[in-house]
């Protein structure tokens, strides 16, 4: 590991000198900064960067954190759209910073980066995900069977049965959907799209036997009936899951079960 050297920072992020047709452009990152140890208020801070427009917003955040201001705090793990750590509000829309290219979000104007809404901000772009995961745990996101004995071979399933819930298996729990939901913004008691998607994944799994229990959980006052079908979640999902459709399917299952 190299020790950080100050004068290196000046060179970082610059185009190589002598190249007139450099792909680099100047982009302004407008980041919502919050540090509870300094101020109770969150403030916008601008950073000017030389960056290739084919790079991602996450690369810009890395440049800022590594070369400009090491106090910038955000979550990211795999940086390739699988772990779901870096969901944030970019230009007013929930996206994964690692899947959003600079060129796709109009680099002419400042790019605003905020923490996802509806969850407590801990620092800068990091929020407390506990309420989100609490709702996830509440829907029992695991296979439940009534077998008294362990099966001696795998539980088989037809391709059609697997297809039934294929869409909702794609969830990476990034919270982009739940934190884009206006009903969740209000009091946060609503289960939220992500929890319902993950309940859907097991409710419609032919191998699972606790669908009834999960439906009962989502029949709650703060369950699926609070969905207003605003489609914010479907728009926000970085995995392209048809979230609102999944919620509607759970509603339909609840109604057809009753009547």
């Amino acid at each position, binding site marked *: 590991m190299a020790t950080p050297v100050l004068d290196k920072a000046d060179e970082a992020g610059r185009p190589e000198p002598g190249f007139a047709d450099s792909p680099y452009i100047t982009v302004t990152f407008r980041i919502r900064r919050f540090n509870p140890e300094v101020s109770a208020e969150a403030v916008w801070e601008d950073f000017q960067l030389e960056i290739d427009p084919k790079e991602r917003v996450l690369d810009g955040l890395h440049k800022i954190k590594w070369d400009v201001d090491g106090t910038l705090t955000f979550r990211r793990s795999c940086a390739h759209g699988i772990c779901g750590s870096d969901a944030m509000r970019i230009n007013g829309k929930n996206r994964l910073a690692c899947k959003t290219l600079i060129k796709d979000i109009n680099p002419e104007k400042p790019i605003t980066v905020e923490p996802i809404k509806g969850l407590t901000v801990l620092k800068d772009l990091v929020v407390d995900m506990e309420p989100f995961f609490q709702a996830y745990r509440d829907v029992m996101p695991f296979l439940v069977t009534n077998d008294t004995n362990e099966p001696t071979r795998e539980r088989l399933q037809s391709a059609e049965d697997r297809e039934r819930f294929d869409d909702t298996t794609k969830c990476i729990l990034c919270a982009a959907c739940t934190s884009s939901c206006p009903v969740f913004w209000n009091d946060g008691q609503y289960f939220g799209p992500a929890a319902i998607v993950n309940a859907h994944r097991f409710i419609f799994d032919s191998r699972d036997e606790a669908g009834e229990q999960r439906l009962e*959980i989502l029949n709650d006052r703060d369950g699926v009936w609070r969905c207003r079908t605003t489609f914010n979640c479907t728009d926000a999902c970085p995995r392209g899951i048809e979230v609102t459709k999944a919620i509607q399917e759970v509603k339909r299952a609840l109604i057809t079960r009753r009547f």
Partner: protein
Amino acid sequence: MSTTETPASGVGPVEGAPVYSADNPAPLIEAPRKRTKKSPKSTRGNFELAAWLFMRLSGIVLVVLVIGHLLIQLVLDGGVSKIGFAFVAGRWASPFWQVWDLLMLWLAMLHGANGLRTVINDYAERANTRLWLKGLLYTATVFTILLGTLVIFTFDPNIR
């Protein structure tokens, strides 16, 4: 200002000595959405399901009732100019129109009240605000439904 001095807000200078230590920990800030004893209990009833279904079904029926009502009252047979005491008295002499108006009154009031209930649930943030707004809403709904029902059933065409 010395670095050891603690401001009234309890927030210390970041670069200086830490304000809080293991013996003097920072005050715990409860996450606003944490499930605590105070957070509303889960309600495993079918009320929300019934309310959701009622909105859809009553909406379909109301489309027919209200458009029919508007056509009869405002468009057909001379439009608004025909409406008077005699016209209303004539319609309410028939049980068909009595039932039509009664159904329209009940469905429209319950449909609207349930819609406003969800709006209050979605937008009012404090429990007290919700309580008062809903109290007002339910009072107004019950009053209007009872008054309307009373008028439809006790209407006397010979009143003068």
